[in-house]
């Protein structure tokens, strides 16, 4: 066990999740080391999206949602604070469908800052340009920063959403199938971006794409029927799977 694995950025301890009487996750425990990419894979309905959405408390609004066990961010239980919005500044999220707000590109970028901080707009714009550059989007949009964000292509919108999430300098970013609505080239750009981002941040990604998990992630957890069937380093998991179930899944025998 190396230094990073001893102090995980996110530690999920014996988490059980129910929606009303419907048990979705059973006794899930995962350690997500700092500066790594952790992939959640598994067939539809296995609970991986529920798990990732519980890490920044996006399930709090869902009727009947109940979580037992602990989710720790740098050692602190995220469910003890009454206000989830403080947590969501530290843990960013990018969704399956790109979700820019119906305002301009620049307004999308500075909105998170004006929401939480006071400061000069010119300073915010500068920061926004910096983040757009970090997401390899600035060159493509620099002439239309004040145009509606909806005029961008799907891939560009998704990178805009990633850049927007970076504005609050989160230490962890959650990606819920970020490429499933995108074409292969946009997907490739975003995968490169993920590897770039993990230098300073911790990343958790839910994906249905086995190749993607293999390409970008350092660790993988295989969810099946609400439990973790297998988890560990991605190389090990994909080349020498311990369970027959995972072997079948990664070779595409079921999905």
């Amino acid at each position: 066990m190396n230094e990073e694995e001893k102090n995980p950025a996110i530690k999920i301890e014996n988490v059980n999740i129910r929606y009303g009487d419907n048990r979705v996750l059973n006794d899930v425990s995962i350690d997500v080391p700092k500066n790594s990419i952790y992939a959640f894979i598994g067939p539809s309905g296995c609970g991986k999206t529920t798990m990732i959405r519980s890490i920044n408390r996006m399930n709090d609004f869902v009727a009947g949602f109940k979580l037992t066990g602990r989710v720790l961010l740098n050692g602190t239980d995220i469910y003890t604070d009454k206000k989830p919005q403080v947590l969501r500044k530290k843990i960013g999220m990018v969704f399956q469908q790109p979700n820019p707000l119906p305002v301009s590109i620049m307004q999308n970028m500075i909105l998170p800052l004006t929401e939480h901080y006071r400061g000069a707009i010119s300073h915010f714009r500068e920061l926004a340009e910096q983040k757009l550059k970090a997401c390899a989007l600035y060159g493509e949009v620099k002439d239309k920063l004040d145009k509606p964000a909806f005029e961008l292509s799907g891939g560009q919108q998704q990178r805009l959403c990633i850049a927007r999430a970076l504005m609050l300098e989160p230490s962890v970013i959650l990606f819920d199938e970020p490429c499933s609505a995108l074409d292969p080239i946009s997907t490739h750009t975003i995968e490169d971006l993920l590897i770039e981002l993990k230098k300073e941040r911790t990343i958790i990604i839910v994906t249905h794409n086995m190749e993607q998990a293999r390409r970008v992630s350092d660790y993988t957890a295989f969810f099946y029927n609400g439990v973790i069937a297998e988890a560990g380093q991605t190389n090990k998991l994909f080349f020498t799977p311990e369970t027959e179930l995972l072997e079948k899944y990664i070779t595409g025998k079921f999905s």
Partner: protein
Amino acid sequence: MRHKNHLIGDFAGHTYAWASIGLAVAVCLFIIGNVAYLGADIISLEFLTQPPPANTRITTEGGILTPMIGTIILTLLGILIALPISLSTALYLTWYTKKGIIKTIIESSVDVLAGVPTVVIGLFAQAVFTQPWLGFLSTRIHIEGGLGKAFGRSFFVAGIAMAIMILPFITKAIIESIKTTPKEFPEGSFALGATKWRTVTKIVLNSARPGIVTGVVLGMGRIISDTAIVWLALGGSLRMPGAQPWYEPQNWISTLQHTGSTLTTYIFFTSPAGEGSNPILAFGAAFVLIVIIIVLNAAVAAIGLIGANKVQK
């Protein structure tokens, strides 16, 4: 052969659809045209700027100034009272309450209220606003012996009654609009750490804007065309009987505390179908009424568009 049948079916369908549209538009245009033809003659600057005489049964003199202003005042009052209540009710039902007994009760009350005839709302307003302690909304009647009563008929009372009438329609239009908001917008906002209140007021209400506009237009149409509430809660004085001159700012409150009329009751008082014998006046007023409805609808739509453009920038 089959293909040919389909073509015929297609042609028949198109023809039917166009014929239906044509009929609906033709009826609308015929009514407007007919009212304009019969009423346009009397329209003059004097007709629009003079108050009617005390009794319209015997004379065609005077104009429709006070009923026209009455219509506008009631519309504004009704919308101003109903809109904030509708907005918060809609937001509460869609974002702040979970399924349960309270939600069911509120939702069914809104549905029931939508079906209450306006004459019943007018009666209710009479029953409530004649209470002496609500006298500040209309005028107090002092009787010998000291036991006073409120008159219970005024622009304030009628405005409140109108608001009650349109409340369910605006509320439902806004709820439907909020429900169709794509969930990606609020989710994105939450994920950026925005509070529920900020998300709901900035993101959700903004995308519900078309529903709000629809609700307001619907509500205005109903207020402008209502007669029963005006009859029961506003009274029947064709002029403004409050402190004179009624149009000066210091007398506005007094005017609103007193009775008045709208174009619909004016039509009732002048038309032989109602109480009068001067159809020419009734048609003139009807024409002005239609013009007001068209202008108000256009104005509200324009307000919605201006706001939408601002968001797009």
